[in-house]
Structures are given as C-alpha cells and as structure tokens.
C-alpha cells in the first residue's frame, strides 16, 4: 500500500552564485505520513524548505502540491493553497498577543477585506466568530496554550513560543505542515510534549507533516520516512531503520576512520 505523495520535490537545483545549495534533490511527502529531512549543518535542509515555501526559486526542477506544479507560485499563494510552515528561529510577531499571532494564521481564509467587511458587517462578524471558535477548539485547546492566549508572545518561555508558532501554522488549516526544527533548543520535557503534539496531529487528524530536525531520537521515533541530505544531495531515504544503518549516513554524521570498514551492522 502506497499513499500518494501530497507534496513532491522533483530534481530541484538551487545555486547562489557559485555555491550549490541543492544539487538535484527529489523528495516526496506522502499524505498522512511524517516525513523527516535530516542532515549535518549546511546540508541544504533549510534551503530546501525555503524552496518549497517559495522564497527561493530553483534554477531547475519543480515542486508539486497535490499534483499541481507550484514552482512559479508566490509564497503567500502557496500558503493559501495549504502549505504552512514554522521557522527555525521563533518567528512570532513580537508585541502582539498569542491570540493575534494565531489569528493571523487564519488570515488568508477570511474572504472579506476591510471594505467588504464594512459593507457586509454581519457576514464578516460571523466569519470572525467562526474562525475564533475553530481556533479555540482545534488549536488553542489542542496545544494546551489556553492559559496564555491573551499574553504578549514576548513574555512566554521559548518552548511555549515554539508551540504558539505551531498553533499559528495550524490555524492556516494546512494540507501539509512543514516544521523547521520544531524542538531545537528545547529541554527534554518540552521535546516530549512537542513530539506528542506532532504525533497526535498525524494520528488524530491525518495531517501530512514534513519536518527538519537534529534531534535524532525524536526523528527516529516519530517519522514514517526519513530523507538524509548532505552537501545538497540526497544520500539516503527510507524508513528510520533503513536510514539508521545506511553506511553513507553514518559516514556523513560520524566521518570515517581510515582503518574502518563499511559499518553495515548498525541498528
């Protein structure tokens, strides 16, 4: 049984001047699965994410969402098509409350702009209320951040800020959720909480998730599929067990000793 790919990256090449960030990367995120992208620093993981979001234009290759080619599409339009993401560094709007931040995730789902909102007061009020209700139920309660909703995001702990960022992405009601290092810098308890939320999203809501992560333990625990990048190339791809024992992966992460023979036993 093979679920169809919701998002597929096909032979993407990305260069900045003479620097080759991605050299022909192909990758698929299947519907309802958790796909992880791992790799050493500078391997091109974030470049890949930025290409999928539309911030970088690949020189070659294409990105497809549900079979539609979105390579020329602008980031805000991709977001409206169901591509949501979080950032490696917490990218919340400081000076706004938690709720305002999360509601911004629902921005592109609200049809009316200000002029229309004035003309159709009732409709836009209903829209606003419906969004608010849905956010309260499906996002705020789910992520257990109801106690901080009216606080300014700047006053929250790092772990909570990351959770608010996830909440904002969920408010976009995405088809695919892209998480750039969701547990970076978190302590163990926070990491476990986040891993649980990610798993719940997949299991309870069938959410498709694509994530970049350095925390190997978490990646191996929760992912259905792992892709390994090194120097802009995909060096391995498959189930966590398969990837863990792949000689190229071990080499990329640990290096090789001259005396060492291919360490195939792994596990």
């Amino acid at each position, binding site marked *: 049984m093979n679920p169809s790919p919701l998002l597929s990256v096909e032979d993407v090449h990305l260069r900045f001047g003479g620097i080759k960030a991605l050299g022909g990367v192909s990758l698929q995120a299947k519907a309802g699965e958790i796909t992880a992208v791992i790799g050493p620093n500078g391997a091109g993981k974030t470049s890949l994410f930025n290409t999928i*979001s539309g*911030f970088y234009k690949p020189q070659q290759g294409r990105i497809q969402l549900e079979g539609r080619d979105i390579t020329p599409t602008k*980031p*805000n*339009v991709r*977001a*409206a098509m169901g591509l*949501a*993401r979080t*950032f490696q560094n917490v*990218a*919340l*709007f*400081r*000076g*706004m409350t938690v709720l*305002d931040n999360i*509601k*911004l*995730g629902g*921005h*592109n789902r*609200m049809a009316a*702009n*200000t002029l229309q*909102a004035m003309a159709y007061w009732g409709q836009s009020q209903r829209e*606003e209320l419906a969004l608010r209700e849905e956010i309260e139920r499906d996002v705020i309660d789910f992520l257990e951040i109801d106690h901080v909703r009216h606080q300014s995001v700047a006053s929250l702990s790092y772990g909570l800020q990351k959770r608010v960022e996830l909440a*904002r992405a969920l408010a*976009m009601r995405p088809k695919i959720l892209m998480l750039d290092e969701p547990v970076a810098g978190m302590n163990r308890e926070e990491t476990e909480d986040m891993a649980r939320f990610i798993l719940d999203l997949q299991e309870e809501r069938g959410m498709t998730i694509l994530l970049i992560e350095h925390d190997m333990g978490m990646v191996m625990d929760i992912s259905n599929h792992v892709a390994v990048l090194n120097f802009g190339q995909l060096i391995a791809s498959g189930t966590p067990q398969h990837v863990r024992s792949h000689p190229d992966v071990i080499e990329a992460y640990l290096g090789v000793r001259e005396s060492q023979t291919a360490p195939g036993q792994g596990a």
Partner: protein
Amino acid sequence: MDWITFAEFSLIGLFSGGLLALVALGFVLIYKGTRAINFATGEFMMLGAYLVYTGHSWLKMPLWLSVVFGLAGISLVAIVVERFVLRPLAGQPVVSVLMVTIGLGAFLHGMVDAIWGGQNLEMPQMLPRKPLIWGDIMLPGAVFWSFWVALAVIAGLSLYFRYSRTGIAMRAAASDPITAYALGIDVRRTQQLTWVFAGCVGAVAGTIVASISSLSPALSGTALGVLAVVILGGLDSVAGAIIAGLLVGWLESIAVGYFGGKARDLVPYVVVLAILMVRPYGLLGTRDIERL
C-alpha cells in the same frame, strides 16, 4: 510673564502639536512598513494640499468633495510611487531607498512648481477661524480645530491597526515580512497600503497647514522640521510621535512666548538634541533602529 500668558502659550503649543504629530505619523508609518525614512513626506503634504486646492478652485467641487479628490489623487500617486520607484528597490540597502526618496521629493517639488507655479495661493477655508475664548485665554480657532482633526485621523488609524484584520496583517508584515509572507499575507499589498495611508495622512496635514497659512511649494519645508519630532519620539513608535509632537509644539510656543519669534526654530531642537544624547533611540523607539 504671568501665569495666564504661560497657560495661553502652553495651550496654543499643545494644540498645534497635534498637527506635528500627524506629520510625524506619516514618517513613522513608512518607517515601520519599509524601514526607510521618507524624505518626500513634505512633498506628499504639499501635493495633497495642491490637489485639494485644484478640486475646489479649478474644478469647482464642493469642499468635502475636493478633500476626497485630494485623498484619491494622493493615493494614486502613492501607489504609482510604491510600484515603480520603491518596489524595484526592495532588498537594496536602506541608504539607497533614502536617496531615492530625496530624489522623489525634488521631482514632486519641481512638478508642483511647473503645474501650479511658485506663487502663494489662497486655500479654501477648512477650519473655523473664530477664536475660542476661555476667560482670559484666547486660542486661535484653526489651531484648536486642527488638533481635533489630527487626533481623529491618528485615533482612526490606530484603531485600524489594532483591530482590523488588514491592519493587523500590515503590522505583521511590518514586523517580519518573511513570516507574514509564509502565512499567506500579500506583503506587496500591505506595503502599497502603507504608502497610501502615509500619503493620505500627509495630504490631510498639508491641507490643514496650507489652509492655516497659505499654499506654496515652500509648504514642503514643514516636514523637515517635523523630522526632529519623529526622531525624538522614536522612528517606529506611533505613541512616540504623538508625545513628541505635543512636546515639541509646546516647546516651540513657549520659546516664542519667552524669547520671541526667532527662538521658535532654535529652542525645541536644542532640547531634542539634549534628550537624544540620553536616549538615542528616541523616547519610545526600539533600541536597535538605524542611525542616520
């Protein structure tokens, strides 16, 4: 000088500070939205006032319609400027953008001079001139009413940014364009809207200034003085612009009262300079703002 005179000068100063705050708001909007200081702010004020004048005196529109005409005209200019002058500069160093706004100012100045000429024109009367008299204190009507117009515009915009969805999106795009873009906010549109708002704020301020004194290309110089207000308040703070506007307005008026007309251009700026030595980022500005 006795207390009555002091109170009178203070009130005149505070009420005229409203207009300073309004002009300052034009700077702050653009700075927050694009991280650049718009040195053409004065020209936007002037052009807005000329458009209102044109609507009223050339096209014989009623006063309210000529104001609408002026705002629509300046919005159009702002859209064109944003699209064809500023947007191609996206990603360039802030200094390039500053230089371009200076050039834009010179261009608009020349254009106004060519179309309407350099002479003083008589604006239609916008605000009641009847002075207000409270006991021994007399307040010029135009100063009093200009304050309330400025306050209404500032309050309206603040509420818009605080509560409307587009306003919140504009704030988001101003504070972190990349993230806003990834959330599906059309950052180009919010930038465009920022310029339209700044243009309209400038046009309202310019129209009021012109109707209090008279209309000539020299009107654009008003904004340069307000730059001190903006820097004092903090380049990215609307509240700072209001407080600094009132403070500088009051200082100007008190300086005139105690030291005569010539002190008007000196005393406030010495005080601003002194404050900036202690708080280089302005009263309410963010600490890491760009230095000029």
